[in-house]
């Protein structure tokens, strides 16, 4: 332990000043408190760290003799360090901490941690300091740099020095600092580096030394490179995430609209039913299987699929079957269905949103590098959507049902004359489309709020994706969804979320007017309904 070994001789003497410092911590004047903190910090050692940590998390108690104790959350106190006899002598007081003290405290603790024997602690502390500039720590850091052997800690220390050294009077020091920044760039340094490269109002460079400027440009390009990559990956990830959501909500529609030429305005509500099915499964798990509650999601997938498929089949049998070949009427009838479905759900579950929690294994994320966090729930949705697409593709191209579906949609009369029960195939097709919509609802439940009007917010997007990609076309839907997701995420930081959505919608409308058959038109087929 890199600490001070107290000889028994100096023990008592030190204890006095120690007690004095501890008492000073309880002073009412903040400046006295800060001075006391600094004195304690200079001593170093585990006792000092423990004392300051206790002060930081407001569990410190000081008795009348200047002995320090830590209040336990379960009640009672424990002594801090060997100088604190039990029981504490009243009156016991808890020092007051204001923001100024807190700032000093946090810095001090960081410094103390820099001297910890654990290199991980040191590294974390060094990185912390590198993120938040603090000139007063520079000497400490410099000192640490000399004796530090661990390469990661060295780099972080050099970086934190760079803050200060960038302003140094000695150009070679400045250069060294800038090169350190170029080595491990961070957006926090950007303003300082840009200032070095800027010009005064008389168009003279602020920084006179050309070599320093060169080093600064290197640093700036490194920072920009990092920013570009972070943005790129961030946009890509969020774009793919949004694209996968769009894909899931549109896939069902591609099947029903594209293959069956049925305009299902209640498609959004099928999504909603899938989301609510997930909610119900979660509640059941919480009630009957609380120990395995995190696995509700696995059971929710088939539950949502079948719930939505059943509702879809009911709609198809009772309403759609009779409106064959009348797309405008189908549109209106299914709009009516959607109104009914929303109201039913509203009466069953209430008009408020219900909470569907991410299971633990989907919460959180990993920070790949500064500023870019890959959240698990979004990554899972991307993978899930790919799985669903593969499933649909498999069913349509490799199974008997899929073959019949394709036959009926290409040439209904011919298929009927070959003995295919077209009505039954219609039912199965619509059920499948509805089921896939239910799966989309599962994904939506993991990403956002679940309420009766969940579907309304997505139906227009779903239609746009389907029309954009070319109706009845898996590849088109895939391309349309992903493209739209990435395009939206790229537009958002530029023009804002609402305006971005408007612009995207307008662009799609213009594109469709230019090319009504969509991105991947089915060859040889006229765009007709």
């Amino acid at each position, binding site marked *: 332990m890199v600490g001070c070994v107290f000889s028994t001789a100096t023990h008592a003497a030190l204890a006095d000043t120690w007690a004095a410092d501890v008492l000073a911590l309880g002073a009412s004047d903040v400046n006295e408190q800060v001075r006391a903190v600094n004195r304690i910090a200079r001593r170093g050692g585990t006792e000092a760290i423990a004392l300051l940590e206790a002060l930081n998390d407001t569990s410190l108690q000081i008795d009348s003799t200047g002995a320090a104790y830590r209040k336990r959350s379960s009640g009672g106190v424990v002594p801090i360090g060997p100088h604190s006899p039990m029981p504490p002598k009243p009156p016991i007081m808890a020092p007051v901490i204001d923001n100024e003290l807190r700032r000093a405290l946090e810095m001090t603790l960081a410094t103390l941690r820099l001297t910890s024997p654990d290199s991980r602690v040191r590294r974390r502390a060094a990185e912390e300091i590198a993120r938040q500039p603090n000139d007063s720590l520079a000497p400490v850091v410099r000192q640490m740099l000399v004796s530090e052997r661990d390469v990661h800690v060295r780099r972080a220390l050099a970086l934190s020095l760079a803050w200060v050294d960038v302003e140094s009077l000695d150009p070679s020091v400045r250069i060294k600092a800038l090169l350190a920044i170029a080595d491990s760039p961070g957006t926090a340094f950007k303003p300082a580096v840009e200032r070095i490269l800027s010009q005064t109002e008389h168009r003279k460079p602020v920084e006179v030394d050309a070599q320093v400027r060169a080093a600064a440009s290197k640093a700036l390009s490194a920072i920009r490179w990092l920013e570009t990559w972070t943005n790129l990956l961030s946009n890509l990830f969020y774009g793919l995430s949004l694209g996968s959501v769009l894909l899931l909500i549109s896939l069902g529609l591609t099947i029903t609209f594209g293959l069956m030429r049925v*305009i299902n305005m209640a498609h959004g509500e099928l999504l909603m039913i899938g989301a609510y099915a997930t909610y119900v499964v979660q509640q059941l798990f919480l009630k009957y299987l609380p120990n395995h509650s995190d696995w509700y999601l696995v059971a929710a997938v088939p539950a949502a699929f079948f719930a939505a498929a059943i509702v879809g089949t009911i709609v198809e049998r009772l*309403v759609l079957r*009779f*409106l064959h070949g*009348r*797309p*405008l*009427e*189908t*549109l*209106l*009838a299914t*709009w*009516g*269905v*959607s*109104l*009914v479905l*929303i*109201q039913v759900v509203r*009466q069953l579950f209430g008009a408020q949103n219900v909470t569907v929690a991410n299971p633990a294994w989907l919460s959180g994320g990993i920070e790949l590098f500064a500023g870019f966090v890959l959240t698990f729930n979004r990554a899972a949705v991307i993978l899930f959507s790919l799985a669903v697409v593969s499933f649909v593709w498999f069913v349509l191209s490799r199974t008997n049902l899929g073959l019949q579906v394709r036959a009926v949609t290409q040439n209904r009369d011919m298929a009927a004359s070959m003995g295919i029960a077209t009505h039954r195939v219609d039912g199965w097709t619509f059920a499948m489309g509805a089921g896939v919509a239910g799966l989309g609802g599962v994904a939506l439940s993991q990403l956002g709020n679940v309420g009766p009007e969940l579907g309304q917010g997505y139906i*227009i997007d779903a*239609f*746009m994706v389907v*029309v954009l990609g070319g109706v009845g076309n898996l590849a088109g839907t895939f391309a349309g969804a992903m493209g739209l997701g990435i395009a939206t995420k790229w537009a958002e930081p530029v023009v804002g979320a*609402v*305006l971005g*959505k*408007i612009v995207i*919608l*307008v662009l*799609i*409308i*213009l594109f*469709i*007017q*230019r090319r*009504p058959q969509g991105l991947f038109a089915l060859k040889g087929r006229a*765009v*007709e*309904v």
Partner: protein
Amino acid sequence: MQASSSNQVHRSSHRLEPVLSKAGWLAFCSLLTIACVVVPILHAALPTSSALQIPTYAVTILGKFACFAMAAIAMDLLWGYAGVLSLGQGVFFALGAYAMGMNLMLSIGSSGVYRSKLPDFMVFLDLKTLPWFWRPFDSFWFAIFAALAVPGTLAFLFGYFSFRSRIRGVYFSIISQAATYALMLLFFRNETGLGGNNGLTDFKNIYGYSLQSDATKVALYILSAAGMCGVYILARWVTTSKAGRVLRAIRDQEARVPFTGYNVVHFKVFAFTLSAMVCGLAGALYVPQVGIINPGELQPANSIEMAIWTAVGGRGTLVGGALGAWLVNAAKSWFTVVLPEWWLYILGTLFIAVTLFFPRGIIGVFARSKA
């Protein structure tokens, strides 16, 4: 052949189909009289204790319904006769309402909450001067002009580019719905300068007359009812003309029409633009009677509801449009007061039932039972 044509006495030229038959004119004039003369008399001349007296709030409701009927007639012209199902007519209605609303806002003058020449919401948003596009709305007649021109222009452009690309049927419906949604989002933004999600409200005067006075309300009602009748005659004139027959041909066999020498795009754009302008006018008459216009009016659900008014009454009959608007809105008013949770079920079932069982609406039911 010469003999047969000389047997028939003709004026040199006349329309193939008259705007209204004699019986039709009779019915129309009676309705006009009842609406514009009898109702106001029942309101003003009778004492409030009388059972037949129509209270002021009822007059306003009738006025609002008349505006809806106007829009429904326009919708029927577009859908029932030209076969174009636009799910965005509510946008044109709302644009007309906003146009008039802007004039009403500006005529509040300095008697608003903030006692400033600027509308209240602008003061609230810290705007210092009136945005440029607000200025002409100081004039009432400009507002009327804008209520017709803005929806008309928007419809013309949107329709031209869509129909030219052969977008039709359900595709057109979906795209019109998406465009409606985009516009609604635009109007919700505060930056658009139209009141954001609160919209425009708190009107005081119209054309100098106080909106609180009974006389103004009755006058607005009469204007709306007369407007509805006028729009009906206009629509009859269009649908009984050769243009109307061309529109019906487009509705029934669009693919065949160009081979008969007609430019389908022109006709569709015409119907779309006319319908939009009528909806705009309806909106302009509506807003002083309801006292508020906000972006919620632009939501796609409102436009889709217009379609059901037409479908319930009977598509392709014009009268059906007006009838459907009255019936559905009356039902809505009643249900949302008495049995609110039921209204959406009723409306949803109405959509389903009408499309499945009564494709020709109420008028269709009567026509069938007559035949």
